[in-house]
C-alpha cells in the first residue's frame, strides 16, 4: 500500500506533520501517516475532547438555548394594570409574536411566567401552583413595580411586596406600568440570559 515515508518508529507523535519535517518534498505524507495504530489513540483523544466539551454543555446546549430563547411561550394570565400593556404588546403595533412569543392558556405548555400586576396574598398560592405546574426549563419575569416590590400598594395589608418572595424571578421590568417596548426589552434581556445558559 503506497509509500510510507514517515518513520514508523515514532509512536509518541500523535500529530503527523511534526514527525516528518525531514522530507517536505513528499506531498501526501499527512494522509499516509494516519495508520490504524495511530488512528485509534487519536480518535480516542478527539472523542474524549468531544465528550468533555459536551460535558460542559458546549455542543448541544447552544442549539437548545437558541430554540428556547426564540420560542418563549408566556402564560396567558392578566393580573392587573400591566396585563393591559402585556396585551398591547401582542397588538398590531408591537406584535410580540415577531419574537416567537405566543401566549398559551395552559401552564403545562408555557415556559415563561410574566407576573403582570399586583400579587395579593389571596392569589399567592395560586401563583406558586401555576409556577410549579409549568415544566422545566421555565423563567419568570416580574413586570412592573407591583410585581417587583409592591409598587404604590407596598404598604397595603393584602399585597405581596414583590413576587420574588414567592417564585424565583429572572428579569425585573421597571415601570408602572411598563410600556410595551419595555416589556419586549425585558423579554430580549431574558433571551440574553438564556443564551448563556449552561444546563
Amino acid at each position: 500500500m503506497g509509500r510510507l515515508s514517515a518513520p514508523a518508529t515514532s509512536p509518541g507523535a500523535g500529530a503527523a506533520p511534526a514527525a516528518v519535517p525531514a522530507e517536505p518534498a513528499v506531498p501526501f505524507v499527512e494522509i499516509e501517516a494516519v495508520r490504524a495504530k495511530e488512528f485509534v489513540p487519536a480518535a480516542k483523544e478527539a472523542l474524549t475532547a468531544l465528550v468533555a466539551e459536551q460535558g460542559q454543555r458546549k455542543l448541544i446546549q447552544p442549539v437548545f438555548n437558541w430554540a428556547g430563547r426564540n420560542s418563549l411561550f408566556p402564560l396567558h394570565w392578566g393580573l392587573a394594570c400591566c396585563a393591559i400593556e402585556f396585551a398591547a404588546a401582542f397588538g398590531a403595533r408591537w406584535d410580540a409574536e415577531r419574537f416567537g412569543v405566543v401566549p398559551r392558556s395552559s401552564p403545562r405548555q408555557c415556559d415563561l411566567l410574566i407576573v403582570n400586576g399586583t400579587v395579593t396574598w389571596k392569589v399567592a398560592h395560586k401563583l406558586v401552583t401555576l409556577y410549579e405546574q409549568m415544566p422545566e426549563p421555565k423563567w419568570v419575569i416580574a413586570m412592573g413595580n407591583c410585581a417587583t416590590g409592591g409598587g404604590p400598594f407596598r404598604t397595603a395589608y393584602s399585597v405581596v411586596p414583590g413576587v420574588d418572595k414567592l417564585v424565583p424571578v429572572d428579569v425585573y421590568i421597571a415601570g408602572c406600568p411598563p410600556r410595551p417596548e419595555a416589556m419586549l426589552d425585558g423579554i430580549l434581556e431574558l433571551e440574553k440570559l438564556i443564551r448563556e445558559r449552561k444546563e
Partner: protein
Amino acid sequence: MQPADLEQALRPRLGEHLLGVEPFEGTAGKVRFDRSAAVATFRALHDELGFTHLAMIGGIDWVAHREVVYTLWSDAAKQYVFLSTTVPADDAHVESASGVWPSANWHEREAWEMVDITFDHHPDLRHLLMPDGYAFHPLLRSFKLHEPEELEVKVRHV
C-alpha cells in the same frame, strides 16, 4: 325632591325612628334613622318613594360608633338620597337590606368584612374580598398599615 319633602313623606311611617333629614349638596338629602326601624325605612323608600336602585352601602368607623351609609337612586326623581344609621362599636349590627334590594348582598358582605358591621338576616354573610378566615377588619381606624419589611413570608404549598 327636597329634604323637607322627604321628612314629610317619611315622618308618618317612621315616627320617632326618623332622626332627621339633613341637606346634602347634590342629593335629595341625608335621612338619619334609628336602626331598629331599618326595614321599615327601606320599605318606605323603596315602595313609596320609588328609590328602586341601591347604589352603595358604605361603613364608616368613627371609633366610638360606626355609621352605615346607604346611597339610593330614584329613576323617577332622578336624584340620589343618603340613608344613614349609627351603631355602637361594641354592638355593631343592623338589619340587612338584601330583602328589599338584592343588590345589597355584596355591599353588605364588603361592609361586614371591612368595617365589622354585622347585617342580620343576610342570606350569605361571608368573606368577599379577603381570603376565608381572615381575622381582621382592615377599614377600622384601629387597623394600622404595616411596613412590608416587617413581614416574614411563608408560603404554604397547596
